[in-house]
């Protein structure tokens, strides 16, 4: 009796310059939750994309319930009962839940039989407690609700194997608990689940078995009961992981930035900041924790002048800068590392030289009056690249050709070389491999030790606990608590991120 819902043998996949999957063997028992663990670039995403038919392996075979199959498109995968829920939801904002569910469905005819579909959606929603209405438009739903729509999509199509790519990245610890309950229900409903994560704690909680990938190869497949988090981390990295970066003691100086009752709107016209208040002092890292979408990005944009505040005041070194043009704010010594480097930070088609002088092109020796001094700029860039160890194959080539990690390093270098008094970093290690991540965190600590005030907005709680001196938790546009990492545990923070206020939550 075939016990494997899915079995992959010898899966190999090349991309230009990299062997993403190297003869990988993987199997999924029926009714188990099997976690794929590994760092960014280990090959997890490639492997599940192969299962979902987005890529086709160069070598290897896939078997579904013992039968050899060719998965050539997500459509094939669906027919075979494989449903994938991506980290970035594959939802069309302007369509309704119902329309998203039937998107791409072959069984639907030319005209849509809305009544039948709506009924089935409601059935699924009630069975698993999803609370989804078929006629809501996606852009009106919360992130958690959107995620459940994704699951409904798969169940609607009769998926028996669910692949979940970092599903808790956008959830609070409490919402994640709810989510895990749903997974357990799906398990008992006979579904088999492949779960991708890099969060060791939840992996230990939810998995039956764990397969660790490193640099495209399988390091090992283990039962949850036979390993510890430390074992898993070592398997992932290949060496002892530094869980502690050796942070120097806090030397907090004077107040550098003060935010008073800040209010602001996001691009959709929704008021995401509802009265934020906090201060950051020189020599400290002030972290902001919160589930993505509670106003963090808008906060950073308002502080740097890229977005207007509707109410409230911001003071830098006792001077009000609310709604000043970005240039004036930057001139005061504020540096900004945005979460989307290609959106604001860098100009993709321009060279490394032209990008690194973005903030100082107006000054000597980069320019003399109205004339540019590109040889001076080249020297400046060269020094910058060397100090921050950025891999730049050709200094004149467009910056978009660099790897994500190197782009981030270049950005970091540019922003930090100015010796800012206030450094704002938003999700600075997102999408970076562990080497680059360590580097960025060290540099942030360096800035702090040098007396800068650092505002670190991050979705990675572990990161905040590791390097921040104080952490403010943002929920629905307000700071609901400020804590010190050594005095609080992760569950308390999680509760605040989820909106439940503790009795004495304001401990500074």
């Amino acid at each position, binding site marked *: 009796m075939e016990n494997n819902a899915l079995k992959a043998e010898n899966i190999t996949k090349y991309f230009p310059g990299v062997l993403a999957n190297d003869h990988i063997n993987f199997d999924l028992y029926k009714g188990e939750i099997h976690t794929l663990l590994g760092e960014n670039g280990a090959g997890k995403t490639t492997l599940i994309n192969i299962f979902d038919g987005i*890529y086709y392996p160069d070598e290897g075979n896939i078997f579904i319930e013992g039968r050899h199959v060719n998965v050539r*498109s*997500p459509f094939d995968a669906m027919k075979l009962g494989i449903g994938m829920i991506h980290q970035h939801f594959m*939802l*069309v904002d*302007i369509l309704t839940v119902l329309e998203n569910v039937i998107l791409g469905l072959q069984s639907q*005819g030319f005209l*849509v039989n809305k009544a039948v579909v709506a009924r089935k959606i409601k059935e699924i929603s009630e069975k698993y407690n999803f609370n989804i209405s078929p006629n809501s438009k996606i852009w009106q739903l919360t992130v958690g609700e959107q995620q459940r729509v994704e699951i409904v999509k798969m169940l609607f199509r009769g998926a028996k194997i669910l692949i979940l790519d970092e599903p808790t990245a956008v959830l609070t610890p409490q919402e994640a608990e709810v989510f895990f309950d749903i997974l357990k229900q799906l398990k008992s409903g006979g579904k088999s689940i492949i779960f991708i994560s890099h969060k060791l704690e939840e992996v230990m909680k939810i998995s039956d078995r764990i397969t660790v990938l490193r640099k495209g190869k399988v390091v090992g497949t283990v039962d949850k009961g036979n390993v510890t988090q430390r074992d898993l981390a070592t398997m992932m990295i290949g060496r002892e992981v530094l869980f502690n970066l050796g942070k120097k003691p806090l030397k907090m100086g004077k107040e550098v930035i003060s935010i008073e009752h800040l209010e602001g709107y996001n691009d959709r016209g929704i008021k995401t900041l509802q009265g934020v208040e906090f201060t950051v002092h020189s020599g400290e890292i002030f972290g902001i924790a919160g589930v993505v979408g509670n106003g963090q990005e808008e906060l950073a944009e308002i502080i740097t002048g890229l977005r207007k505040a509707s109410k409230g005041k911001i003071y830098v070194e006792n001077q009000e800068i609310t709604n000043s043009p970005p240039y004036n704010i930057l001139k005061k010594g504020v540096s900004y590392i945005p979460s989307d480097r290609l959106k604001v930070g860098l100009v993709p088609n321009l060279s490394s030289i032209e990008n690194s002088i973005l903030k100082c092109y107006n000054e000597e020796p980069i320019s003399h009056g109205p004339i540019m001094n590109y040889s001076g700029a080249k020297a400046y860039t060269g020094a910058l690249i060397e100090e921050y160890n950025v891999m730049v194959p050709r200094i004149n080539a467009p910056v978009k050709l660099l790897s994500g990690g190197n782009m981030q390093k270049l950005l970091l270098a540019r922003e930090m070389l100015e010796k800012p008094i206030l450094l704002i970093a938003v999700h600075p290690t997102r999408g970076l491999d562990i080497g680059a991540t360590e580097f960025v965190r060290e540099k942030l600590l360096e800035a702090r030790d040098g007396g800068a005030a650092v505002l670190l907005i991050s979705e990675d709680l572990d990161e905040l606990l590791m390097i921040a001196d104080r952490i403010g938790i943002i929920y629905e546009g307000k700071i609901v608590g400020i804590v010190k990492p050594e005095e609080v545990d992760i569950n308390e923070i999680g509760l605040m991120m989820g909106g439940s206020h503790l009795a004495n939550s304001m401990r500074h």
Partner: protein
Amino acid sequence: MVTPSAHIILANLLFAAVRSGTIILYPTIGEIFAERAGIMNVGIEGMMLIGAFFGFVVAYLTKNPYLGFIAGTLAGGLASLIHAFISITLQGNQVVSGLALTIFGGGITNFYGQHFANYQLKTSLKYFAIPWLSKIPIIGKALFNQDVLVYLSYILVIVMWLILYKTKVGIHLRAVGDNAQAANAMGVNVYATRYFWTFFGGLLAGAGGAYLTIGYAPFWLDAMTAGRGWIAVALVIFAMWDPLNAIIGAYLFGSLDALQFQLQAAGTTIPTSLLTMQPYLLTLIVIILATVIVRVRHIGVPKELGIPFSNEEK
């Protein structure tokens, strides 16, 4: 109190407005759907010219205006395939490709068209009045006493609206234009969808041009479309990518066009050129307003418009 003659003048004006508006309604609908799929085609002027010319030639040679209309429509569709290939498969710059298509259309119709300059079509389209509806005062004649191709445009708008909002095809189309990656992940063939709707846009651009030389003014002149293709590009924004709104925009422009003729015929002292200028000027003002409204209301523009799609790894 409205005098009878004012009634008649207004009715005649609206009648002409609908006819002139129909020329532009076809390509506007077509481009709405192409842009909904994410492809911007500013080559409408070129495709209209191609449709106008080839439609005219076939109608002239076969003495059958309907064959001419079909031929012009197909010619426009074929021309759009060049743009489709460059924009979709080769992921080239869509604005420049569209421009090249316009220049190409102008060049090729000028080149082959000289032979046919000032030729007239002897055959004409069938007119008929729709019973009862055509008796409605003022607008009855304008809307329901027209030729076949005008009626066809009404059916087209309704059918396309239904397709867009009530069918699976429409869902796929809207998905591709809003989030191509998501549509692709759900099994929708983004490339095929875009090719199809770009071709559709070309067909309708050709149809509009063909109507110009077959139904509206049954002769051929070099560069006859006189910038209507560009007005259509603007009207798509004005219509906020909705086929029903397109009618309003098209007939509005048609009214300006018709008004300008009426004034000239009535012997106005306003110089001709200032009259012919105002449709363009007014379209410009309309676009400014529409842009501001779209920006403020965060609606309309298909998010994928002009962005090439590739399902290879980046």
